[in-house]
C-alpha cells in the first residue's frame, strides 16, 4: 500500500470550512442587493464606477504585493471587496481619475503601507474615500447625478436626505419608506437601505460578522439622535449608517476582537456620527466616525483582553 502521500503537520488535523476567501465571497454576495439597486438606479454610471474601482483596487493590490516581493493574495477577494465598497461610497458622477486615486490610497497606502495585509489600522475603502472627498472637491457633483432616476428628480440636482434635515430645505422630505427603498441622492449606495440590511442579514446568517457592532452603532445613533432633538429613525435610515454599520465597522481587520471592545467601538462610532451630523457637516459623518473608531482598536483590544479561564481579579 502506497503511503507516499503522508503529511506530517502539527495538530489539529481537522479543519472547519472557514476560509478567508469564502468569507470575502460572502461579503461580495451580501453586497449584491445594494449593488444591483445601485445599478438599477444609476445604470451605466454605477457599472462604470464599480468596474473602475474594483479593477484598480485589484490591480494596485497585485502591483504592490509584487513590488514588495510578497505573495499575491488577490484570490482571497479582499481587494475586490475594498474596490466595490469604495465604488458604493462614491457618487455616480465622479471623474474616473478620482476613483483611481481613491483606490490607490485605499489599497497601497491604507492597506499595504499602514500595516500590511491583516494589520492595517484603518478601513481601506473608507480611508480612500475620505482622502478623495477632502482632496478633490467632488462635493460639487455630490448632489447631482446622471442616469435614469425613478421619479421625483429632474436628474440634475437633488439634495441628499441628510441635507434636508440639516438645512431645513424646502420641499418634500423623503419618507421612511422612501429611505428604505428608493434613491434620494448621495453615494450610489444610497438607493434604499433595505438592500443593505438584506446583505447585512446574510452576513449575520453566515456568521461572517456578529450582531454586536451593527446593533450598538444603530442603537446609539437612534437613541442619541432623539436625545439631541433629531429624528433617530431618519438618522439610521438616511446616509451611509446602515452600510457603515454592517459592512465597514465590522471589517475584521479594523474592528476590535473582543465583545466588550466591540461594544465600546460601536458606541464611539455611533456617538460621533450623531455629533457630527447634528453639530457639523450633513455628510461624511459615518466615514469619519468609523475611521476614528478604527484608531481606537489596538487600545480596545488591550483594555478588553479576555480574562483567562479561572483568573482571579486582583483585589
Amino acid at each position, binding site marked *: *500500500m502506497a503511503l507516499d502521500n503522508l503529511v506530517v503537520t502539527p495538530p*489539529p*488535523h481537522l479543519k*472547519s470550512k*472557514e476560509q478567508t476567501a469564502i468569507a470575502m465571497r460572502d461579503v461580495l454576495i451580501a453586497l449584491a442587493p445594494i449593488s444591483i439597486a445601485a445599478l438599477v438606479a444609476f445604470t451605466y454610471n454605477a457599472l462604470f464606477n464599480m468596474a473602475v474601482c474594483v479593477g484598480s483596487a485589484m490591480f494596485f493590490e497585485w502591483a504592490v504585493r509584487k513590488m514588495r516581493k510578497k505573495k499575491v493574495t488577490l484570490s482571497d477577494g479582499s481587494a475586490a471587496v475594498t474596490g466595490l465598497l469604495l465604488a458604493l461610497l462614491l457618487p455616480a458622477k465622479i471623474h474616473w481619475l478620482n476613483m483611481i486615486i481613491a483606490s490607490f490610497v485605499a489599497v497601497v497606502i491604507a492597506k499595504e503601507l499602514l500595516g500590511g495585509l*491583516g494589520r492595517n489600522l484603518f478601513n481601506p475603502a473608507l480611508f480612500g474615500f475620505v482622502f478623495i472627498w477632502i482632496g478633490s472637491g467632488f462635493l460639487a457633483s455630490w448632489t447631482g447625478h446622471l442616469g435614469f432616476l425613478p421619479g421625483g428628480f429632474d436628474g440634475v440636482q437633488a439634495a441628499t436626505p441628510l441635507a434636508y434635515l440639516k438645512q431645513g430645505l424646502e420641499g418634500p422630505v423623503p419618507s421612511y419608506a422612501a429611505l428604505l427603498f428608493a434613491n434620494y441622492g448621495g453615494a450610489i449606495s444610497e438607493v434604499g437601505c433595505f438592500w443593505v440590511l438584506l446583505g447585512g442579514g446574510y452576513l449575520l446568517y453566515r456568521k461572517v460578522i456578529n450582531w454586536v457592532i451593527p446593533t450598538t452603532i444603530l442603537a446609539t445613533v437612534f437613541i442619541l439622535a432623539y436625545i439631541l432633538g433629531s429624528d433617530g429613525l431618519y438618522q439610521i435610515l438616511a446616509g451611509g449608517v446602515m452600510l457603515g454599520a454592517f459592512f465597514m465597522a465590522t471589517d475584521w481587520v479594523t474592528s476590535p476582537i473582543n465583545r466588550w471592545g466591540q461594544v465600546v467601538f460601536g458606541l464611539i462610532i455611533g456617538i460621533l456620527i450623531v455629533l457630527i451630523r447634528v453639530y457639523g457637516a450633513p455628510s461624511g459623518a459615518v466615514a469619519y466616525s468609523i475611521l476614528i473608531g478604527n484608531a481606537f482598536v489596538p487600545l480596545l483590544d488591550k483594555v478588553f483582553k479576555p480574562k483567562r*479561564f*479561572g483568573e482571579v481579579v486582583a483585589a
Partner: protein
Amino acid sequence: MAELKTFKGGIHPPYNKELASGKAIKEAPVPREVVIPLQQHIGAPCEPLVSEGDRVELGQKIGEAQAFVSAPVHSSVAGTVKAITEVANFTGAKVKSVVIEADPSQPEFSKKPGKDLEALTAEEIREIAKEAGLVGMGGAAFPTHVKLSPPADKPVDTVIINACECEPFLTCDHRLMLERTDDLVAGARLLKAAVGASKVIFGVEANKMDAADALRSRASSYPDVEVEILEVKYPEGAEKMLIFALTGRKVPPGKLPSEVGCLVQNVGTALALYEAAAWGKPLYERVLTVTGPGVREPANLMARIGTPIATLIEACGGFVGNPVKLIMGGPMTGWAQPDTSAAVVKGTSGVVVLTSDVVDLGEEGECVRCGKCVDACPMFLSPNFIVQAAKRGQWDKAEMWGALDCFECGCCSYECPAYIPHVDYVRKAKAEIAALKKK
C-alpha cells in the same frame, strides 16, 4: 429540555464516531517484536531492569522509575530482550526503549488471587497504581499515583471520571463503558478511596447515551457514584473544562484540579486501576481505536504496549483510499506519523487515518483578525495575539496573551480561516518562555 452541562467556547467538529462505536473490543495480534519505550509518561525516564539476551515474562517489570514523577514499565509479551536502544517514538523523539522478540506462542495473563477491594487503604491503592505503571490513558500520560497524592492542604472531595471521549473518531472509552461497566465503576470507586473523596461523577457526552444508561444502572447500587450527561462539544473532556461543567468550579491558571478539590481520571485509567488491584495486572496493554476513512475495517482493539502501527492497521484490513494523515491519538491533538513504525504507548488512545478527500491542507495565510480563535478558545486566551507575538519573538507578550495557559486543544486552528497553526506557535512560545525563565 434542560440545557446540558458544558463550558464556554469550544467547537463542534464532525465526530465520525459511528465508524467504530458499534465494534466490540477484540484482541489485536501480538507482533513479532515489541518496542517498549522506557519513558511513556510525563516525568523522568525509567532505568532498564533487563539486559540484552534476557528472558522476560508477560507483565514483568522491565524499567524502574527513578523519581516520584515517573512510572515503571512492564513487558507486554513473553520473549527475549533483543536490544536496549534509542528508538524514535510517536512524537519523533528518540527514547531509550526495550526491544523484545515475542515468543511464537504467548501465555494468557494469570490473574492473581483477588483482594478485597473495599478493604484497601489509600496508601495501598497508590502503591498498586505505581507498581502497575499506571498513567493517564486519555493521552497526557501523567503518572496516576502522583495524581492520587494531592497536597495535604488541598483535600479532594470529588473524583471525576472523564467519560467524554470528546476527540472525534475515537470510541475505545465508549466501548469500555459498555463492555466493562462493572469493573469501571469499581475502578472509579478505588480512585475515590485513594484520595478520600466523597463522590465519583462520570461525565459522559450526550452522544453515548447507551454507555450512560449502562453506567447509571450499575451506579444505582452505589450512592456515591453519579452519572452526568454533558453537551457534545470539543474539548468537553479537557480537565479544567470538565471540572467546570460538572461542578461549576474553576481551576485557576497554572494550578492543578486539587486546587478546587477535584481529581480527574480517564475511563481507561480507572479500568486499569481496577485490573491492577483486583487481578494484579500491570499496564502492558490497552484498548485503542483504529479508525478513519483510510482504514478498511475500523475497530476497537486491545493492543499490547509496543505494538507498531503497522500491525494494528493490518489487523483492520489495511489502508483504503489515499491516506494523507496517519495520526497517533485523536485528530485534534494527536501526532501525525511519517510511517507506520511508531509503537503504541500507554497514552495511545487511537490511530486515525485520514484520506485526501477529508484532509484540508490549506496554506497558512495572514491573520485577518476575524476573532474566531478568541471565541473558540475554552481558556479565554487570545490565540491570534500569541501567534503574532511568537512570530516577532516577543516571548513576554506571548506569555501576557496566555501562551502558558494553553493546553493545545486546537480549537483555534480548527476555526481559523487563514489556516494558522496556532498550536505550533504556542509550543514554540512555551519552550522559549521556559528557557527564558531558567536564566
